[in-house]
């Protein structure tokens, strides 16, 4: 059991270590979240560790940390020196790792050519490198990539559990709710419901057992914000859940996390065990008279269990199917008791808000959306990865300045936000400041923060199909419109991409989509038609092209696409070598031809062509 004083001591010691105020010369961190490990960061870590051992280096602290945020550039090794300089080495392989260890750590030589600046250049339209301001502002990801998630002391070192101390010993539960309400924090899981209000409603029903649940059932394709937080900074979530428990008089919390996040589960469980060891969880938190227990509940990977009532059913041991709202969880949640359910990222903001105050938080972002938002940037963009920007940053800033623009210099066509529940935003929306209401107004939604960028090679009907396939797969099957209607929409879309649809199908599609949106039981069903509706609205021409002219302008829909090589062909033979069915022939340096009898319209040749000489008809 640790007391407030114990924590302060740990804090002091570890802050010193983190700032290299101890005897160490360098602090070396290796990004070892799932993304890093997938790129063999563990091997890199071993090499550096080995070298340190072999050379008998005594003044270097080596640590594994969570996600640093540059997914495309993994494995990443960062070196901090005593002057607080930070050197980020990217795409480190075994050779580079040895070099970094021997040259930088021993010799003090900075290996400029491996630094991140060489990988992340933002260029203007003419290809000239330009300086862009740093839009990133880290609250939820504050400790990710800085501390070792397995070291509770390091978390404490960076003001960890200080907010909990403040809450337990200086604030009443009402004051806590008040601060969170005033901060303007809204749910980061998708809906954007004001967090303080949620807590307030739940607190109003206190009297018996209440529950705190953290929703870590992140399931949107291409979204991994919650995973990064749990893998990189699990204590931030634990601390916030204890604070929430105190605010709403709940003594039991659950983290509902999908079993497909094994590393996050492992690290979170380790962190929970540590918190129990330190007396931060269990009976008498920090030797106060407040008790709080926290358990992990594993989800089996059903997307719908991210919907709060389905999540509750799942924790109760029932089939994960949504229940009708009202009653809301704030009055009748888990086992019929008042329950707060917040998303991982939402919780990750709480301790900061308590420590720095509502006004500090409110000053960040926009008027109706305070604070920051973490996005997982993916698709046809240069710098894929995790970023955290203040609300109100425009899409253009995120895509071009932070994301470095599109790959291969292609033109921007659309960006999909909000995952399968969201919609498509186009060039016209690029200067829209990102916040909950703006995105909804533009026909999409914030969602949990996935952001997929698309270029001219993406067919919008195909994109709608992609997301719908996901919802069809993930529908729980409870209510009629979602269970049956979504598949029917998908079948109509298939008809369209097969070139068999009529104008009536297009009409039916829209009617069906609107009906599903209007009558489905839960948010999953209600938002499932969004990708269809928003592409219908913004790329109706593209649909028409499929239906009327039986042609896919992007050349994606195989069954109606014919590929052709234009006179631009330089006869390099790249297409020929890439064709899986040997449908392309031609002599070197002469124009090549596609045998349409053999061609399966897979489109592999298209990106292979260096001069864009392959077009689809």
């Amino acid at each position, binding site marked *: 059991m640790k007391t407030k004083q114990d924590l302060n001591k740990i804090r002091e010691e570890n802050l010193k270590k983190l700032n290299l105020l101890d005897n160490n010369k360098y602090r070396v961190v290796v990004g070892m979240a799932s993304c890093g490990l997938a790129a063999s960061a563990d091997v890199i870590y071993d090499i550096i560790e080995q070298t340190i051992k072999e050379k008998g280096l005594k003044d270097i602290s080596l640590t594994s940390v969570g996600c640093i945020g540059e997914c495309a550039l993994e494995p990443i090794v960062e070196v901090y020196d005593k002057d607080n300089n930070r050197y980020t080495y990217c795409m480190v392989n075994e050779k580079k790792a040895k070099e970094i260890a021997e040259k930088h750590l021993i010799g003090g030589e900075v290996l400029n050519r491996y630094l991140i600046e060489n990988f992340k250049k933002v260029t203007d339209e003419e290809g000239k490198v330009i300086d862009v301001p740093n839009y990133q502002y880290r609250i939820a990801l504050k400790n990710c990539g800085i501390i070792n998630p397995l070291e509770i002391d390091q978390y404490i070192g960076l003001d960890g559990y200080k907010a909990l101390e403040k809450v337990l010993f200086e604030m009443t539960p009402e004051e806590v709710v008040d601060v969170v309400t005033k901060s303007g924090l809204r749910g980061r899981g998708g809906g954007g419901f004001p967090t303080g209000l949620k807590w307030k409603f739940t607190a109003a029903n206190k009297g018996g057992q209440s529950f705190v649940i953290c929703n870590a059932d992140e399931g949107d394709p291409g979204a991994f914000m919650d995973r990064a937080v749990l893998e990189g900074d699990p204590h931030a979530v634990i601390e916030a859940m204890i604070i929430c428990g105190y605010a709403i008089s709940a003594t039991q919390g659950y983290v509902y996390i999908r079993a497909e996040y094994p590393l996050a589960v492992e690290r979170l469980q380790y962190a929970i065990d540590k918190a129990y060891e330190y007396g931060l969880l269990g009976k008498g938190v920090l030797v106060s008279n407040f008790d709080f227990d926290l358990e992990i509940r594993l989800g089996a990977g059903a997307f719908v269990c991210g919907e709060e009532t389905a999540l509750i059913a799942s924790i109760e041991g029932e089939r994960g199917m949504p229940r*009708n709202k009202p009653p809301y969880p704030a009055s009748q949640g888990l086992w019929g008791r008042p329950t707060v359910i917040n998303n991982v990222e939402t919780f990750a903001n709480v301790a900061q808000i308590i420590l720095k105050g509502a006004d500090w938080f409110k000053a960040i972002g926009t008027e109706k959306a305070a604070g920051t938002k973490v996005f997982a940037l993916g698709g046809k963009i240069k710098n894929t990865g995790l970023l955290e920007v203040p609300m109100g940053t425009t899409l253009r800033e995120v895509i071009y300045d932070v994301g470095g623009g599109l790959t291969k210099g292609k033109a921007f066509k659309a960006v999909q936000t909000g995952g399968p529940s969201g919609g498509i935003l186009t060039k016209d929306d690029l200067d829209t400041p990102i916040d909950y209401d703006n995105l909804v107004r533009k026909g999409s939604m914030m969602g949990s923060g996935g952001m997929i960028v698309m270029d001219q090679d993406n067919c919008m009907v195909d994109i709608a199909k992609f997301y719908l396939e996901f919802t069809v797969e*993930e529908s729980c099957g409870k209510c*009629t419109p979602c269970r049956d209607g979504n598949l029917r929409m998908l079948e109509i879309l298939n008809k369209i991409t097969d070139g068999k649809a009529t104008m009536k199908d297009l009409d039916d599609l829209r009617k069906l989509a609107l009906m599903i949106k209007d009558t489905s039981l839960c948010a999953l069903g209600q938002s499932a038609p969004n990708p269809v509706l928003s592409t219908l609205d913004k790329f109706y021409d593209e649909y028409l092209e499929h239906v009327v002219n039986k042609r896919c302008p992007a050349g994606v829909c195989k069954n109606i696409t014919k590929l052709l090589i234009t006179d631009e062909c330089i006869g390099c033979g790249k297409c020929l070598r890439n064709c899986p069915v040997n449908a392309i022939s031609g002599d070197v340096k002469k124009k090549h031809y596609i045998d349409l009898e053999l061609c399966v319209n897979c489109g592999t040749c298209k990106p292979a062509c260096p001069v864009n000489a392959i077009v689809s008809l």
Partner: protein
Amino acid sequence: MSNVKIWINNQEMTVPSTYTVLDAANDADIYIPRLCFLKDISETSACRLCVVEIEGLNTLKNSCTVQVWEGMKVHTNTKRVNDAVKNNLKLLAANHHFECWVCHREENCELLELLRRYNVPNTMGEDPTFSKKTSYCNISNSLTIDTSKCILCGRCVSACNHYTGLGILDFNRRGFDTYVAPANNDFIDDAGCLYCGKCIQACPVGALSGTSDEDIVIDYLNNDNYYVIAQLAPAVRAALGEEFGNPIGTNVEGKIYRALKRMGFDEITDVNFAADVTIMEEGTELIGRIQDHLQGKETHLPLFTSCSPGWIRYIERYYPEYLPHLSTAKSPQQIQGALIKHIYADIINVPKERIKVVSFMPCIAKKDEADREQMKDKGVKDVDAVLTTREFARLIRRFGINFNNLQDYKPESPLATYTGAGAIFGTTGGVMEAALRTVKAFLEKEDKHTIDFTQVRGSVAIKEADLVIDNQTFKVAVVHGAANFPEMFRRIKENPNKYIFVEFMGCEGGCINGGGQPIVKARDLETIDVCKLRAQALYTIDSENKIRRSHENPNVVSLYQTHLGKPGGELAHKLLHTTYSKKEVFGEKK
């Protein structure tokens, strides 16, 4: 409870604040369609047909669970609502297997009714672009699940949980592939199902049904070689009339006898007769155990009744340690069958192999009971075919009989005579009351002719009563509805010497509410106490009968004198008693 003022279709009304929108609409006689809603049983809001427009809300809301609030303005008949209902019906229809003419719900299918009302074309279902779901069948001797007709309203799942507390049926897989079945679509007979049939009655369509013997019975009747004997269960006469538009609780016994005669049954008997015999056997067993107990001998008290096959399936699976408490007397259906095949056959001089016994039962579990190995003697079954009340009605229609115009008829068979005690077997507390009448008479020094034991009547889940014999008082209990069994066992465990006799019936209300009885529309169930009305018909038969105690049935008395000897005697034991054994749920596959 406070009231709130709301508007539905601009009509102002004041309703209790605890009301749902649907409650308010029902009160005002405003029609809102629904499929998945069964009041207090299935309130899952899954079908999305009861959606309404509520001013100020973005999406349509289901009226079945959304509570009213002050100033709420609801619209039930806008184009938006109508289109939503119609489109959802279209989706349901597209995935429904229509073979209405062979479906047992032809007359009262709730989906068909809505499709008619909304004039829904099945264009989507007929368009080959749209795929059909994969369907599964799970067919046992009693229950048939055909998911091709299922519309996934989930009423059966809720009903299974509500009435049995067992949750045998549930959703498997998810999304478009969802289907209702026991876990992993394991064979329903292995899944611990009681065959209470509540799922069938909850189903709005024909996805669940009793496994029908209708065609077998027709074959029997058409075969001159067979001597076909019908036996009619107590509860059937109180309900069959509903199938032909009669009010709930109409006794149509005379018409049933006439219909059976028209159909060509060679002889018509009544299970009520066997019920009287059951009392002789079970009553004697009870008296024996009480006497053993009073003499300090080891015995198994309380004695449990054994008439309800759903209950037998329950105890064999979930409380096998209590099997020694179960009366070894067969159920009336099997007693009647055994008497016909092994005694009556000789009297009428027809070889038992040529006799076919057909039961008309309010129950689907009776089909399974007739199939039990213990109910066969060298390959000769006591009962050859079992039809439920619903199947009986269908058969009457198939024979082209105008049921309501039939003249009453009274069969001549000695096996059709019965007492008032036999008649009330079909309702909860009936077996107990019949037994108490006889047991009291047998044990009392001087017969006080006690007839009415009203403590054991009525709809309370667990009823307790006193049996006073001379100066001694014994406790008995009556429980109905499988969901209440665990509580009964808890009381028995808590106080093992408290009761001497407990009546168990698998269905709430007893046989009159059995799983083979006519289906009452979900909307009528909200307002009508079906059990009470049907039970009343049986109590009227009882009170109008001159003989009201089983042991006074003259044909029962003579049966014992001429053939069986003493109740519980050697021959009676051989013919009229049976054995039970522990059964595994989801046992190992052979």
